[in-house]
C-alpha cells in the first residue's frame, strides 16, 4: 500500500506545474457533471421526495416533514419487509458466495468438459429476469414441472403451489436467486483464480494437502479481496435488484411473505400511490445498503 502511495506521489511530481492539474480538472468536468446529475441528483431527489405528501406521480405534492418516516417506522408492513429482506440476505449471501467459490475452484481444475460447463454455469447471467421468472413460474406452478415430477414418482402428497404457498414462496424466491447467482459468480471466481500462480497449488499438493484444504487454506486467502468485492456486489444486487424477480414471481405475496424492502418501495409508489412513504423506505434501504457494504468491507479487511 505504501509503495502505491509513493508511486502516486512520484507521478504527481512528474506531472509538472499546477496549471496542468487545472487542465485535467476541466477535462473531467463533463464526467463530474454526469455523475452529479445522474447519481447524486436522484439520491437528493429521493431524500427530498421522502419529505413530501405525494399521492400520485401526476398529482400535487405538499411538504410533510418527517411524517412519512413516522408512518414507516410505525407500520407492521415495513417491519415485515425488513424481516423478509434480512432472511433473504441472511440465507442467500452465506450460501451463494462459498458455493460459487467452490464452483470457481472446481472450474480451475479443468475437469473434462469444463469449457461447456463454464457456458452452462454462466447462462443464468445471460437470461433476462422476465424469462427467468417465466421459466420458474411454469415449473413451480400448481400444474408445473415440479409437481408433475412429484406425481410421477408417487409423491402426490408433496405437491403444492410452490410460489403461492405461504410456507414455500420465500424459499422458492431464494432458490431462484441462488440459481441465478451461484454459476455466474462461480465463473467470475474461476477467472480470478486463473491468475493465481499454480505453483502454489502444486507445492501444496506435493506436501500432501487435499483439494479441499488447498481451496480454503490457499486459494481463498489469496483471492479474499475479490471474494469481498463479489460479496458486496451480490449483497447490493440482492438488496436492491431482486424486486423485479419477486414482482414477477409472487408480487410480494401471499400476504407479505415475499415483500422485501425494495419491492415495498415499488408497491407503495406504483400500486398504492404513496410516493413519499415509498421514498422514505428508499432512504432506509440506502442506509442499510451503505451499512452492509461497510460491514462486508470490514469483515474482509479483518481477514486480510
Amino acid at each position, binding site marked *: 500500500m505504501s509503495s502505491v502511495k509513493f508511486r502516486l506521489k512520484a507521478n504527481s511530481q512528474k506531472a509538472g506545474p499546477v496549471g496542468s492539474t487545472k487542465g485535467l480538472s476541466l477535462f473531467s468536468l463533463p464526467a463530474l457533471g454526469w455523475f452529479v446529475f445522474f447519481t447524486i441528483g436522484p439520491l437528493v431527489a429521493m431524500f427530498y421526495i421522502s419529505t413530501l405528501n405525494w399521492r400520485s406521480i401526476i*398529482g400535487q405534492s405538499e411538504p410533510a416533514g418527517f411524517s412519512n418516516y413516522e408512518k414507516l417506522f410505525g407500520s407492521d408492513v415495513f417491519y415485515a419487509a425488513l424481516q423478509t429482506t434480512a432472511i433473504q440476505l441472511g440465507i442467500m449471501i452465506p450460501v451463494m458466495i462459498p458455493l460459487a467459490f467452490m464452483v470457481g475452484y472446481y472450474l480451475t481444475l479443468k475437469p473434462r468438459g469444463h469449457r461447456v460447463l463454464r457456458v452452462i454455469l454462466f447462462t443464468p447471467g445471460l437470461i433476462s429476469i422476465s424469462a427467468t421468472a417465466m421459466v420458474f413460474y411454469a415449473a413451480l406452478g400448481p400444474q408445473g414441472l415440479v409437481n408433475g415430477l412429484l406425481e410421477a414418482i408417487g409423491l402426490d402428497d408433496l405437491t403444492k403451489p410452490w410460489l403461492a404457498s405461504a410456507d414455500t414462496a420465500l424459499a422458492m424466491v431464494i432458490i431462484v436467486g441462488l440459481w441465478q447467482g451461484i454459476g455466474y459468480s462461480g465463473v467470475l471466481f474461476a477467472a480470478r483464480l486463473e491468475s493465481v500462480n499454480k505453483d502454489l497449488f502444486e507445492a501444496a499438493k506435493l506436501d500432501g494437502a487435499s483439494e479441499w484444504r488447498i481451496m480454503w487454506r490457499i486459494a481463498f486467502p489469496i483471492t479474499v479481496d475479490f471474494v469481498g468485492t463479489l460479496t458486496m456486489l451480490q449483497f447490493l444486487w440482492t438488496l436492491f435488484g431482486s424486486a423485479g424477480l419477486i414482482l414477477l414471481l409472487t408480487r410480494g405475496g401471499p400476504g407479505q411473505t415475499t415483500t422485501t424492502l425494495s419491492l415495498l418501495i415499488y408497491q407503495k409508489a406504483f400500486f398504492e400511490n404513496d410516493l413519499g412513504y415509498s421514498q422514505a423506505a428508499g432512504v432506509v434501504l440506502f442506509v442499510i445498503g451503505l451499512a452492509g457494504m461497510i460491514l462486508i468491507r470490514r469483515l474482509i479487511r479483518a481477514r486480510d
Partner: protein
Amino acid sequence: MNQDRKKMLFTSVASALVLTLVGCAGSGSPTSESSSSAGGDQSSESKVSEINVLSLYKKTGDVPEGAAINLAVDSFISSTGVSVNFTEAGENLGEEFEATVLAGQEADVVIVNLFDKSSGWLDAGATIAVNDLIAEWGLDSVIKESAIKEWTNSSGEVQGFPFQGFTWPVWYNMDLLAKAGITAAPQTMDQLIEATDALRAAGIGPMVVGGNDWSGNKLWLQFAQMFMDKTEAADVYSNGGFCASPNAMKGISEFVKARDAGVFVDGVEGYTADTMNAAYYAQDAAIMPAGSWAMSGAEPEIAAVTELGGLPVPSGAAYTKPTAYEGFTGVGFFITKKGAQKLSAVKDFILSFYQPDVIGKFVAEVNVVPATTNDISEYLAAASPLLGEAVSTMQTKVEFALMPDVYVGTHGDALTRASALAYGPGVSADQICKAADQAYN
C-alpha cells in the same frame, strides 16, 4: 482537495440539488385549473385533424371487441373526417398514461375501466369532470343513472362516461353436479358444503377460483361482507378495520369454514383467473365465480350445462339469497385536459360508441353488459346464452353484494396479496383479518 476543486464540486452538487427540487416541484399537478375551465370553449377550437386515443380495448388482432371498436371508429372517421391515432395498451395502461401526462404527450381520450389509478386522475387534474357534458351531449337519458353514480367521486364529480358494465355470478356446471347426485345449485352454505363432499366423492373438483389474484380477492371480499350491510361494507373496504368489525369477522370465519371443508379445489391458492377459467371449461371443476367477460370463452357445450347463480349464504347473513356482483366500472371514456381542447371531435368520437348498432355489436360479440338503457334483447340472441341468462332469470335468483373496487381504491393490490394468503391451508381468520388490515397500513 484544493479550494478550486472544492468550489467546483460544491457548485455542481448545489446545481443538481436546485434542479432536482425544481423538477420535483414541477412534477406536481400538471394544472390546477378547474374542470369547468378545462372544458374548453368549443367555438374557439381550431380545426381538429386527429384525435389521440389510449385504449384498453383492442381493435387489431384476434380479439372479440375488434369488430365493434372498428365499427365505432370507422363511423366517426367517415362522419367527421377526423383521423384517429388509436393506441392499444395492456394492463399497464395506468402507468403508460401517467408517464405521457408528465411528458405533456397524453392522449385526448382514454378508454379504460375505473380502477385505483384512473379514479385518481380527475383529482390530479389529468382528466376533466363530465357532469355537464353528459347532459349537454344527451347522454343523461342513454346512460343508466346507477352507472353514472358509480363513476361519481366523493366530491360529486363524474369522472368519465360509463360504457361497459358486467355481472359477476357464480357458474354451476349442472352436469357435473348431477354426476355427484346434486340436482340443484346450492343456495345455502350448508348445501354448498354438502355439494362439495358429493363432488369430491365423485372425483370432481368443487369450486375453482384464482386464489392468487383479483378473482380470488373478489370472492373473498364477497365472503367478508356476508354479514355486513352495504354501509358497513363500504366503510370497511374504504378504511380497513376487518379485525375490528364483528360482522366482517363472521364473514371471514365463514370463508375459513368453507375452505377447510374443501369447497375450493386443491392448491387453489396457486390458481389465477386464467387457470380458473381453463379448469372450469375443461370440466375439472364444477363451480366458479366469473364475470360476464368470461362468457365469450365458454364453448356452447359448457354454456349449455352451466347455470348461473350466486354465492350461497349462511343463515343469519345480511342477504337472504345467494350473492353476486354487478357493476358499471368495466370500461368507460375519460377526457383528458388535451382532449378538452378538442371537445367537438371528442364528443363525436365518444358518441359514436353509444350508437345502438355499436352497443348491439358489443353485446352480441363481446358479451358486454352495457351501461346504457337501450333495449338489447334483439342482440342477446347472438350473444352467449349465458349473457341472456345473466341479465334475465339470474337477476331474480340472487342479491347483489357491494362491488368493492371503488371503495378499496389503491389498497386493492395489497388486499389481493392478503386474500391470497387466506386461500392457503391452515391460515386462521385472525391471521387473515390482520393481513387484510395491513393492506391499509
